[in-house]
């Protein structure tokens, strides 16, 4: 399947793009992260410490165990600092 993967804040800066299309057969967010880490150092660096990251699947906050079958967009970002 092809996913839209989006990055925000320092995750975006480390990976160097704001979004990209990714072909993957990953069943969960964590499996997708493993695939990305294996690609290039910039991904390995961005995903070094998952406890410092948050994830949303189709714009819903979730966790790294979440399934992504049928999802259209996965977003990675640091803890939010709104308000």
């Amino acid at each position: 399947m092809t996913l839209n993967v989006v990055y925000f804040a320092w995750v975006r800066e480390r990976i160097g793009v704001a979004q990209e299309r990714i072909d993957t057969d990953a069943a969960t967010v964590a499996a997708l992260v493993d695939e990305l880490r294996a690609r290039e150092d910039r991904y390995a660096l961005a995903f070094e410490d998952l406890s410092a990251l948050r994830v949303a699947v189709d714009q819903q906050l979730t966790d790294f165990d979440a399934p992504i079958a049928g999802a259209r967009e996965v977003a990675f970002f640091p803890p939010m600092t709104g308000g």
Partner: protein
Amino acid sequence: MCVRVQADPFDFGAECDAFASGRHHVGAVVTFCGIVRDDGGLQAMEIEHYPAMTAPAIEAMVAEARTRWSLADALVIHRHGRLTPGERIMMVATAAPHRADAFAAADFLMDYLKSRAPFWKKEITTAGAHWVEARSEDETALARWSDETARR
């Protein structure tokens, strides 16, 4: 109910006035305004957000607040983009028959907006730029609404 996410400034006074107007069954209006605070050396704040998620996430927070308290109305405005010290970043307003509901709902919305709405702040200072880190106090504040946390 109204949620606005925008780059443009908003007029806090005019919004407060309009929000409190024409209400006969509301006894209490609470508003909150967040301002870019200069802790020394801050030149600008850049706020990034996740356009596809921001408004729906805030609308879900407002809907949750309405299930918890007796609210007549609520308003959230949040800016993104570049702001300078003294500029108004965001506001929340709640209207309720009784003051306890208006206060609790505004406080709740602020805690959720702070830690669960998809905004990220970057501070541009004379010493360089850095992303603002989430504070543990903000998670502690969120934990006060623990029924909600358990329900999610």
